[in-house]
């Protein structure tokens, strides 16, 4: 959907995506949830902070940061949410279940770093 420097050959124009419009991460990327501890409204549960998972899907279209939206800021720049898969054993050190079990959750781009 958003391609960097989309150029139409010979058409005489170039599309330059705005800041934040192009997804940083892609399906298959290994990412880690940041260990931020915000004061006030947040939507990334504490149980996920600092955990490592794999991006399954880049959710389209880009969306409003729901943590800012909670304070009424529901317009302006949009970035991507990512559906991330975490093995349960990566989240819980003493997980009881199958090693195949996993957790899937949407995380906003500003909460992730590539590893």
């Amino acid at each position: 959907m958003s391609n960097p420097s989309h150029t139409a050959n010979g058409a005489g124009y170039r599309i330059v995506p705005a800041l934040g419009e192009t997804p940083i991460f892609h399906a298959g990327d290994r990412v880690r949830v940041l260990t931020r501890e915000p004061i006030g409204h947040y939507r990334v549960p504490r149980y996920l902070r600092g955990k490592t998972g794999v991006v399954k899907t880049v959710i389209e279209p880009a969306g409003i940061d729901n943590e800012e939206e909670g304070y009424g800021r529901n317009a302006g720049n949009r970035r991507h949410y990512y559906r991330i898969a975490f093995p349960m054993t990566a989240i819980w050190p003493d997980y009881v279940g199958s090693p195949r079990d996993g957790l899937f959750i949407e995380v906003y781009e500003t909460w992730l770093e590539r590893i």
Partner: protein
Amino acid sequence: MESSHGHDHAHDHPHAELGQAGRPGYYDMLETAVRELLVERKLIGADEIRRQIEVLDSRTPALGAKIVARAWVDPAFRARLIADGRATCEADFGVTFYDDTSLIVLENTDKVHNLIVCTLCSCYPRPILGLPPDWYKAKPYRARAVIEPRAVLAEFGTVIPDDVEIRVHDSTAMVRYMVLPRRPAGTESYSEDQLAALVTRDTMIGVVPITLDGGRVAR
């Protein structure tokens, strides 16, 4: 019962029927006060609450059950549903969704069992399942489904073999989820309506599998 018009007491009152126990509770009166003030100030319409109650009442798990049954009998529909849950429900069933929410329909297979939860609040696919049950919104389920899903499922009488992967989906943003349960054996001759009758709310949350008694037998 719903929005009174401020001062006209000839209309219904949103309080306990005369002769029954109790004045309206504190929160009931708070809701009435807030609503009436908003209507008086023309910030919301006098009839909009009643209208929205009709919308809420129209949404029940029966709609989700129809969607599941259709997916069981129609592979092309199933494929579209999996590819884009919201668009397919809008196009084929006229469902309207909230804001920018999307819908991901999660297929259970012989290798994967899906379970949905909202640890932070109570996100739930309301447009196709109606309102969530109390237990879905309460602490035990929300706290434990993400850390010990197998133990939670066992409390519902559901045992998932170790070679089946459990996927827990925690709704925190715009995506809403619905489980597409496995069609049980022995239903090859069932009509779509008969299939839909087997599909209960809890099978679409993922805490129980479909059974041929349609959940009528108490667990």
